[in-house]
């Protein structure tokens, strides 16, 4: 309303009566009234007071310029009142001190509110503009000034409060309420009060308590894990305490928590670190993920703590790796080796996920450690491919795709990125796949295709397209065979009887096989011709090359004493054995000439036919372990065995593996050279001029997906290219190279 009136007045000129001034006596009398009223209020005895009267008194005093009287009078009055309270408080015995203080405080607050209401006008017009304060602030200041900061009161307040905290820590329930009220009072009085008076001593006391505890603890507990779990428990208790008891605006909370952690962990760090190392190992070995999580959480508080935990873990991992690799026996068993790799990877994955909350430093350290670990064995790539081979063979026996098997394959896939010699793995896998498909054993197409799709993700389409074609080749061969057998002329019933089957392979997709000659026995030759006719009639413009060194046959052999056995033999062995249909005795030379098999292979086959115990369907003279060029072979009439079906085919296969591996490795090394050179050319073409160091880095980058190139090799490549005049040394700087178009 005032603003409306204000407008009106401006438009009128009014006669304003004489401004009254209040006389001294009047103001003194008014003040007495006020004083009386305030003292009543301070004792909370306001029933018979009239607000309006008091308010009017204050109002008129201010209006008549006597505000200062009010102010000074108020200040003095409050001082006197509070001093009276202080003296009463001192008289109070120790245990009731805080309660009494609390009571007085609550009543003081109440009366202050009432005074505020009365002083509303004077507050607005006098206190704030002139005295630069407000009633409320004044009230707080008075309390602080006369009560809290007086040495007597303060001297008693502090120990009493700390005593309360101690008791509460020990588990007394009832003190919580009182404690929170007192603390709230200190807070309301202003930040400095709380901080100065209470917080600092509280933090000191807390620190002292926990310092003591942490000193005592290890002697009792002895185990890092236990100590940490105790620390965790204490910490959570303290936090709960803060929230409940102190109802602190969470200003103190983190400070106290920090104090606890400082005491229990940081100041104790060195000792803990010594304790941590062996205990961490225990935790890792025992899969104690909770303990690990706790360790991680606590060491986060310590600067550099996490790094210590991390290094500890990975030293352990590397040590385990070294131990594994140093054991040569273990190394031989490839499946075992890879299994252990996978287990370690699994375990650390879990650790990272559960205990360390996927901390990046840990993940990076794990990758680095795994890399050293995986590549610690020279034959790592071979082992992995053999492992996969083993798993796939086993899976082929099952009719359905087992999900656990798929998971295992996933895990193996995870190891592959760590490998340095990925191209070795690729080559080995292809050879193994070929062997699997052609061995005539069961093959689970589904599993194979699943693995191939995984490999596609890792190595890219060009590599896996060949593998896929290998699989489809097998299926196409089945179709062709069906067509063949159904289209046969009726005169060849023997064909159907003999169960002849051919697998047609596209030469580009399958690993290259050296050309072998073998003079097949006449029975097989006629079948071969038939098949060729059939195939060429269906697909003109294609050429078939026969590879006799791969497949197998099952022969029924009649031995002496009417014994009949079924022999599972390779094609070569079939040729050799069928020779004995016509002749009883043959020399090595004769066999070689008739069959046309290479000496190397022939020796091997004869060895498995004649020299292996329990499978010697041929007798040899002279009887010895090795095959010599002058040996004579005879059909072993007296051959006997408990089994009806005898597998002679893959006896020599084991020996092959070792040599094959070395051979594959050498081939890979050989293959790498052109790859390195191609990479160098690619890099130089885009950069034109590059210095040696950068070139090496770039080339390594390019080749990273296949294998880890080593600098000497690259240097050799560069030299070769300079010789071929693809590159030249820069005339100005000796270390740089220039691309020659």
């Amino acid at each position, binding site marked *: *309303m*005032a603003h*409306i*009136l*204000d407008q*009106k*007045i401006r438009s*009128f000129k*009014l006669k*304003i009566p004489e401004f009254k001034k209040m006389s001294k006596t009047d103001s003194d009398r008014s003040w007495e009234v006020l004083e009386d009223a305030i003292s009543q*209020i301070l004792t*909370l005895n*306001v*029933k*018979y*007071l*009239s*607000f*309006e009267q008091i*308010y*009017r008194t204050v*109002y008129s005093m201010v209006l008549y310029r006597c505000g200062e009287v009010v102010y000074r009078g108020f200040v003095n009055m409050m001082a006197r009142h509070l001093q009276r309270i202080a003296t009463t408080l001192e008289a109070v015995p120790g245990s009731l001190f805080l309660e009494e203080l609390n009571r007085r405080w609550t009543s003081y607050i*109440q*009366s202050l*509110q*009432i005074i505020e*209401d009365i002083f*509303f*006008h004077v507050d*607005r017009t006098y206190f704030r503009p002139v005295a630069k304060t407000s009633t409320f602030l004044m009230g707080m200041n008075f309390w602080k000034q006369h009560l809290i900061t007086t040495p007597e009161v303060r001297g008693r307040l502090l120990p009493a409060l700390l005593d309360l905290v101690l008791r509460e820590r020990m588990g007394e329930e009832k003190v919580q309420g009182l404690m929170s009220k007192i603390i709230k009072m200190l807070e309301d009085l202003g930040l400095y009060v709380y901080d100065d008076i209470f917080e600092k001593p509280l933090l000191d006391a807390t620190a002292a308590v926990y310092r003591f505890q942490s000193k005592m603890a290890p002697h009792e507990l002895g185990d890092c894990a236990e100590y940490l779990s105790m620390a965790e428990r204490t910490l959570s208790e303290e936090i709960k305490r803060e929230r409940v008891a102190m109802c602190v605006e969470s200003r103190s909370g983190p400070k106290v928590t920090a104090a606890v952690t400082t005491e229990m962990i940081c100041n104790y760090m060195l000792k803990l670190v010594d304790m941590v190392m062996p205990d961490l190992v225990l935790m890792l070995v025992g899969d104690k993920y909770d303990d690990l999580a706790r360790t991680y959480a606590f060491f986060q508080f310590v600067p550099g703590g996490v790094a210590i935990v991390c290094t500890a873990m990975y030293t352990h991992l590397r040590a385990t790796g070294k131990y594994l690799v140093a054991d040569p026996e273990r190394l031989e068993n490839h499946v075992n080796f890879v299994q252990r790799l996978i287990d370690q990877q699994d375990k650390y994955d879990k650790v990272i996920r559960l205990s360390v909350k996927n901390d990046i430093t840990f993940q990076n350290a794990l990758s680095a450690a795994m890399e050293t670990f995986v590549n610690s064995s020279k034959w790592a790539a071979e082992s992995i491919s053999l492992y996969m081979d083993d798993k796939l063979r086993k899976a082929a026996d099952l009719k359905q795709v087992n999900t656990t098997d798929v998971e295992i394959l996933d895990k193996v896939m995870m190891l592959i990125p760590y490998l340095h010699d990925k191209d070795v793995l690729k080559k080995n896998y292809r050879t193994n796949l070929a062997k699997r498909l052609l061995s005539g054993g069961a093959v689970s197409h589904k599993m194979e295709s699943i693995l191939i799709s995984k490999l596609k993700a890792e190595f890219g389409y060009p590599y896996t397209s060949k593998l896929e074609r290998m699989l489809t080749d097998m299926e196409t061969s089945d179709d062709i065979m069906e067509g063949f057998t159904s289209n046969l002329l009726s005169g060849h019933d023997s064909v159907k009887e003999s169960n002849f089957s051919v697998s047609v392979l596209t030469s580009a997709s399958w690993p290259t096989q050296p050309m072998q000659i073998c003079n097949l026995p006449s029975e097989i030759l006629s079948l071969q011709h038939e098949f060729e006719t059939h195939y060429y009639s269906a697909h003109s413009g294609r050429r078939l090359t026969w590879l006799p060194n791969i497949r197998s046959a099952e022969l029924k052999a009649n031995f002496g004493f009417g014994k009949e056995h079924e022999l599972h033999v390779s094609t070569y062995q079939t040729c050799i054995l069928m020779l004995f249909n016509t002749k009883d005795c043959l020399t090595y030379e004769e066999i070689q000439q008739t069959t046309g098999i290479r000496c190397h292979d022939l020796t091997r086959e004869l060895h498995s036919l004649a020299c292996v115990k329990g499978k010697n369907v041929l007798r040899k003279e002279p009887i010895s372990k090795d095959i010599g060029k002058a040996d004579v072979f005879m059909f072993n009439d007296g051959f006997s065995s408990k089994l009806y079906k005898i597998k002679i085919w893959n006896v020599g296969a084991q020996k092959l593996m070792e040599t094959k591996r070395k051979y594959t490795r050498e081939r890979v090394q050989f293959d790498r050279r052109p790859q390195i050179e191609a990479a160098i050319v690619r890099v130089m073409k885009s950069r034109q001029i590059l210095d040696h160091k950068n070139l090496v880095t770039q080339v390594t980058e390019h080749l990273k997906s296949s294998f880890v190139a080593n600098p000497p090799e690259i240097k050799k490549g560069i030299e070769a290219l300079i010789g071929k005049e693809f590159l030249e040394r820069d005339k100005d700087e000796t270390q740089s190279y220039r691309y020659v178009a």
Partner: protein
Amino acid sequence: MRKEDTVKLISAEGFEFIIDRKAALVSNTLKNMLTSSGSFTETELGEVRFPEISTPILEKVCQYFYWSLQFASGKETEFHIEPEITLELMMAANYLHT
């Protein structure tokens, strides 16, 4: 009109104006008075005396209270004040902090 919802304002001459509590709360002074935590006589009885405010002024003040409630709800109307009472009205307004 129930007893709890109303307040009685008594002028210097003893005239009693009974108004809504909501209207009375327009004045900050009255608001403090009526909602004070202390148990003054005013809060007990629900009536306030103004020995220095005369009846026509107090009447105008009450009208103002109702007008301002209307104004707050959005309907704009003019509050008419006679020029003769302006000064005293202003002093009362200052006192009541309106």
